[in-house]
């Protein structure tokens, strides 16, 4: 009686509601876009209205923002941070650099497609997206969470081998702790 589909549905609705309205964003920025986060959080655009607040460490965070171009050296750190975060976790890619390389597409040290290395739930386009666009991205993410479609963390676990192969193609000297699924 307690474990049937119907009651699970109710639990899911409550869970997703809580998850949607309480997004802890890891304070970590990679590219130009890190500078768009302070205005998004402070008085002018006030993202705390949506329950979005900063978290200092990966253990406490739900959302990882990849704010712009991602150097191969940073990718190593990003993967580690991502694997340290606790499920469920979401990733947002900012700007054209994260989507297809942007103006750094032919640089020897920035990756071009973020979603080949870690699963991305929402992309925001622009170079750089303004705070309004960032907030729109967050609202989109909330919608996905409500519908249960923001399942990047699940995909990462299921397709771990594929992601690992892609990551190892770039990080040739792989010295990282094991991913604890």
């Amino acid at each position, binding site marked *: 009686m307690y474990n049937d589909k119907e009651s699970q549905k109710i639990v899911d609705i409550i*869970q997703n509601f*809580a998850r949607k309205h309480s997004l802890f964003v890891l304070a970590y920025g990679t590219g130009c876009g890190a500078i768009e986060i302070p205005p998004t959080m402070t*008085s002018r655009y006030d993202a*705390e209205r949506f329950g979005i607040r900063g*978290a*200092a*460490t990966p253990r406490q965070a739900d959302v990882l923002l990849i704010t712009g171009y991602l150097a191969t050296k940073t990718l190593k750190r990003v993967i580690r941070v991502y694997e340290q975060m606790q*499920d469920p976790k979401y990733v947002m890619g900012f700007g054209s650099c994260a989507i297809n390389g942007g103006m750094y597409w032919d640089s020897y040290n920035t990756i071009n497609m973020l979603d080949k290395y870690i699963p991305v739930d929402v992309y925001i386009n622009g170079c750089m997206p303004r705070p309004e666009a960032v907030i729109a991205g967050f609202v989109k993410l909330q919608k996905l969470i409500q519908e249960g479609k923001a399942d990047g963390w699940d995909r990462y676990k299921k397709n771990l081998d594929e992601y690992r192969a892609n990551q190892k193609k770039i990080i040739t000297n792989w010295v990282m702790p094991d991913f604890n699924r």
Partner: protein
Amino acid sequence: MEGIGYKILGALLTTLLAFTVGMFYAGFRRKIIARIQNRVGPPVYQNFLDVLKLLSKKTSVNHGIMQHLAPLWLITMSVSTLMFIPVLKDGLFFTNLNFSGDLIFLLYIMVFGPLGMALGAGQTGNPNSAIGVSRGLTQMVGFEIPWIMAIVALMIQYKTTSVTGLLDIQSQNGTWMMFSSPLAFIAALLAMPGMFRYAPFDIVGAPAELASGPISEFGGKYLSTMMTSGSIFAFVKLTLYVDLFMGGASNLIELVIKTFALYMYPVLWGAVSPRFRTEQAVRYFWGWPLFFGFAALIYAAF
């Protein structure tokens, strides 16, 4: 038999009340700070959502036994302190264990939680945690001294160490201890922001420099337990202050009004303050608060 039933129900009710009130106060704090910064701010029930979400997160971190126990230790401390504090002056449900413990016991049990937290944080092996713990203990040495002096002054002046005894004396005299022993009140009040760890005394979990300090390795359910414990403990501290200095409360509405008024003091101070460094905080506590503590002791003794 009936008595025990009432007692258990009362204990549950008290905990629930402390949790709810503490959570709403934290929500109000976020809202008030947002309004001061000219923002809209999150809804007042935001902290409930946070706790719910943190509870629904998976946790796959293991650093050792003490790391798993630390949040439990904290919440044990909060609830047991709550049990020994008279929430209302009289009443069926909120009596709990008021008559068993006295102020000295309370002082002891209130540092029990941070100690467990320090052990747990130490085991995670995160350097930020270690720095945070050492800062926290330093700060505790800072604010505990004026605070204990104020309480000892009360004990000497009224020749009792029991909280209920002090409450009775206040209702017999018809005046609050805030007015009958003002020096002790000032010392305790000046030490209060340190106890709450809001700005400018948030040096323990400074997010920008320490990555939230001792709790930096705790996420998910651990963090939600800590938030719960924190909100219960905030209520405990406020109630203790109200009991000692503001004549207690005879019904819940009075209690909420008094504690909220008291709560506004660290919140509003924190909303407009930057952060102290550790030695600045200690220097502050060993300045005027200590002076008033001494003055209260001398006033009580003679």
